[in-house]
């Protein structure tokens, strides 16, 4: 068996009478782009929210680098090294782009109230380092020129990039992107694809939910398919594409 970065075992989640996730298990290997697809309502985002501590799970466990991951709250997950973006972009709209990214450094820095009030040497050094790192990341995702614009004044594509930069600021080992290409035009999607590939080449592991099947099949190393809260396939894109269950889930049952 090859190396495993994240392993989810029998994840279950129920909303009232709806079984949103049922015994979902999956393994993500280091430095791969792992795609999660499925029809609307299949439970992709729910699984994401469980992984990132936003929803409490009803069963199962998640191991990160072989160690059990506490899914108690989102900030412990972020501290453990999983960063995420949201399907409908969630930025701090009235903060500038660079401030958004600087917030992402929160979990890796430690200056407190007294450091800030006394403006200690350590606090100033840390603050300068935060700003430098944020500048680097804005440059990395290609929006360095918008650093001092308010997040809400950025174009849609740039907002997506900013959200990724903020997630990267937490120094993640796994970056989880929830439909990053949603609402993007063809040019923006191509640029996004290059960005995600770049991230992987720089050593990051990426978990990707995506509706754009072409993007997923072209970009991902392995793909899992969810339907009605259950995993129906998990393999390299070529195998998944040929899987009859997957074809059925997407195209419906053929007439017999």
């Amino acid at each position, binding site marked *: 068996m090859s190396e495993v970065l994240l392993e989810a075992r029998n994840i279950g989640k129920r909303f009232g009478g709806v079984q949103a996730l049922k015994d979902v298990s999956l393994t993500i290997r280091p430095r791969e782009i792992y795609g999660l697809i499925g029809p609307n309502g299949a439970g992709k985002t729910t699984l994401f929210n469980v992984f990132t501590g936003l929803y409490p799970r009803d069963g199962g466990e998640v191991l990160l680098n072989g160690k059990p991951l506490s899914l108690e709250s989102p900030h412990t997950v972020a501290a453990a090294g999983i960063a995420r973006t949201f399907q409908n972009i969630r*930025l*701090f709209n009235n903060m500038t782009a660079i401030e958004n990214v600087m917030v992402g450094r929160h979990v890796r820095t430690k200056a407190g109230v007294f450091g800030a009030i006394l*403006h200690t040497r350590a606090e100033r050094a840390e603050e300068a380092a935060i700003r430098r790192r944020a500048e680097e990341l804005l440059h990395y995702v290609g929006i360095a020129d918008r650093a001092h614009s308010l997040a809400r004044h950025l174009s849609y594509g740039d907002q997506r990039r900013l959200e990724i930069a903020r*997630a990267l600021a937490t120094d993640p080992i796994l970056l989880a992107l929830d439909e990053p290409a949603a609402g993007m035009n063809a040019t923006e999607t191509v640029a996004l694809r290059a960005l995600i590939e770049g991230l992987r080449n720089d050593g990051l592991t990426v978990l990707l939910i995506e509706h754009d099947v072409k993007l997923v099949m072209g970009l991902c190393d392995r793909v899992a398919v969810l339907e009605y809260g259950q995993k129906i396939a998990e393999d390299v894109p070529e195998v998944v594409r040929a899987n009859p269950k997957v074809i059925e889930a997407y195209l419906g049952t053929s007439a017999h």
Partner: protein
Amino acid sequence: MMNPLKTLSRREKLGLLLIAGTLLVLPFMLATVGTAWVRITNFAVLFVLLSLGLNIVVGFAGLLDLGYIAFFAVGAYVYGLLASPHFGIHLPFWVILPIGAAVAGLAGAILGAPTLRLRGDYLAIVTLGFGEIVRIFMNNLSNPINLTNGPKGINRIDHFQIGNVNFAGTDTFFGLNFSGPIKYYYFLLVVLMAVIIINRRLKHSRIGRAWVAIREDEVAAKAAGINTRNIKLLAFSMGATFGGVAGGMFAAIQGFVSPESFILNESIMVLAMVVLGGMGNIWGVIAGAVLLSFMPEVLRYTVEPVQHALFGKMLIDPEVLRMLIFGFALVLTMRFRPAGLWPEALHRREMTENRT
């Protein structure tokens, strides 16, 4: 961050110098009109301090707090109990003010803890209740042990004393007469400077960014790795600390505290100052507080003569007119400048445009 004075243009420096000069000679100018105006100014500065404290909670962290005056009350009672004949304790002010700040900060955290999951309207109702609870406690904690002296309040509270200088009487320095209120004015000015600096430093710090992030989008803030529980408690606690310091000085200036100084109206007034001025922006909040503190006093002194001159008699009581104008001003502000007179984003845009 660079030294802020270096980034200012010559015009801004001149402006700052003018403001500083005015603030320094202000009490003597006011004293020629009447010592009452120096007192009024002192209360205005107290309200500025309160507004800056509440601004941390409401403006930065976006947590609507309708019981903020409770922390003012806590600070005032701590001072009253530790520097009056009530218990026969007479500690110096520089010992009590930090104690008051700490107790108020603790009260802030205690209030914050049960409200962490609440937002918006629900949070407002719980904090409103907390403010009333504190006031009612102070009203009733005279039995069986007389802790607060109930509705009668605490009398004959000590004035500040620095060395041989007591803030009760008049002293002469450099040939100028410093009355009690004038001495308090300068003390308040020093505290105000400190509070402004602290506020600015907090705002541009890791903690300040976390507060604003929570205000902007709590879910995203969590996902970005912020422990929202701790950071929210910190906001409540920091805001309360400012309230506690202001309360201690209020007790000393008044020489008397009673529960009726800490009614819901006062909380709403401080909130109105923050909202009118521009939530989150320190200078806007200061402007709002100064405006709303002076307005009723100016009305008090002008409404009567104006009405006598116009109609020959009093038609509307100044107090009624005050609420009328106050309400009208708020409605107009919300209609035409919903983010306040001097909101944060506008301010920032001006700054960045200057920079690039």
